[in-house]
């Protein structure tokens, strides 16, 4: 498996998918949780001197063929912001692939600092729900390509009280509340706060407001390792004209394939299956390429 294999894979794609489809590849995005400037969630790479160093880990994923990197500041307290800016600066000095930073970004000033430090995109979650105008302000100043709206969505389990329409408690604007057809609800504050907002409607609204990409996490599947929520992923992907990154639930390589094909995601985000060395990104690309998914060849 290697360069020659991918040459064959490229020909296969041209024949099967047709030249008009282009060869925009599906992206595989490792996600790194950062707490106080250190990568957390047990990372086990034998070749690492310091598994907690964001810059060193980023370099490994870059070498392995990671298509982008996402850094999430899970402390998200105001004093951790300076630490995160420093992390972004150090990583961007060594790694020449796109970097997205999320966690605790609340205003245009925060966005500017991250972009100036070397981030290419910021992801907005709670702040976007509480203040949807931030999406438009960020897009107007920096371009919609760098505003990612991150949505944490949880399946709605209607009891006997299934409502016709429950106006949401968040400030997401009118018409986004859960109704009888709603299947997923938006949560904020790291999954702690239900908002009463319909996740699919919110995704569409976020794009209207200026978001260039959606990072969609299934709270039901996150950490379960039994696959992404394909129905959620597909519903959001079909409701939005911008790329959707599926997140939450990857336990094996088949799950990545399902999210990209059945879920129609444009990219898959995964943490633990890569961090613990269960699979390398190269193995993921070999696997997906073998099943006819367009992926970027990697040097390894």
């Amino acid at each position: 498996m290697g360069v020659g294999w991918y040459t064959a894979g490229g020909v296969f794609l041209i024949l099967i998918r047709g030249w008009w489809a282009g060869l925009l590849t599906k992206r595989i995005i490792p996600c790194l949780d950062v707490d106080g400037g250190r990568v957390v969630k047990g990372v086990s790479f034998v070749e690492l001197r310091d598994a907690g160093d964001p810059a060193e880990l980023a370099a490994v994923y870059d070498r392995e063929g990671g298509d982008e990197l996402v850094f999430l500041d899970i402390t998200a307290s105001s004093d951790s912001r300076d630490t995160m800016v420093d992390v972004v600066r150090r990583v961007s000095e060594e790694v020449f692939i796109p970097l997205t930073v999320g966690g605790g970004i609340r205003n245009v000033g925060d966005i500017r600092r991250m972009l100036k430090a070397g981030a290419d995109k910021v992801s907005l979650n709670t702040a976007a729900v509480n203040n949807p105008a931030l999406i438009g302000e960020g897009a107007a100043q920096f371009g919609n390509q760098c505003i990612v709206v991150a949505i944490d969505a949880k399946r709605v389990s209607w009891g006997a009280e299934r409502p016709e329409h429950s106006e949401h408690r968040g400030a997401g604007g009118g018409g986004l509340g859960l109704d009888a057809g709603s299947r997923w609800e938006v949560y904020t504050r790291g999954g702690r706060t239900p908002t009463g907002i319909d996740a699919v409607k919110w995704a569409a609204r976020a794009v209207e407001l200026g978001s260039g990409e959606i990072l969609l996490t299934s709270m039901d599947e996150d950490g379960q390792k039994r696959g992404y929520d394909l129905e959620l992923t597909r519903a959001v992907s079909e409701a939005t004209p911008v790329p959707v990154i599926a997140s939450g639930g990857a336990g094996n390589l088949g799950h990545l394939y399902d999210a990209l094909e059945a879920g129609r995601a444009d990219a898959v985000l995964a943490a633990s299956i890569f961090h613990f060395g269960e699979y390398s990104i190269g193995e993921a690309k070999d696997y997906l390429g073998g099943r006819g998914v367009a992926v970027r060849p990697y040097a390894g």
Partner: protein
Amino acid sequence: MKLVVVDYESGNLRSVSRALESCGVAPLVSGDPQDLSNADAVALPGVGSGPAAMTALQQRGLVEPLREFALSGRPFLGICLGLQLLLDWTDEEGGAPCLGIVPGRVKRLPPTTSGGTGFNGTPPPTLKIPHMGWNSVTLNANHQALSDIDSNSYFYFVHSYYAEPADSAGVLGTTEYGLPFCSVYAQKGIVATQFHPEKSGAVGLRIYRNFVAMAAEKSRGTPHP
């Protein structure tokens, strides 16, 4: 050698500077028109909206100095929006004139389906806009800026508009996304890419290295090989 990265508060300056630094040069990040006039080489980065970028360049008095520089034949690198701004006109946000260095127009990527059938015979999905991610670039001709780069290498794109130069002679690279569009333009000293070479890993850095070599030759006064 004086290599200027044009600063007009447009996003990814740091990445572009870092990419140049990794090639062993110390770029000057500046929005001062004076720095353009005596530069050996200029890099014009850019993300976001074309009309907003033109307004920012006008406010800083950079439009004429950029035109003069690019038309002088000295090495000029345009990146993403920095390619689109070279043309006469952009359709973005109702339309606006651009720098008018390369005849042609900037258009929106068309809404289109990805063709064929979708998963399990379902209708094909429509192509997402922005065109975001790694796509391949087919090279049509040789150029110093593209040396050691294989045709069909993958580069990182993020854009909703594309440049359509009136004269195809300078279109050295094309990429498919709903339609084939110009992803590398080069003519005389101008080299411009729709993708972000500073975000395209090792192969992207080769473009910077080649550009720095062009600039070094020019500043030494040696003829173009």
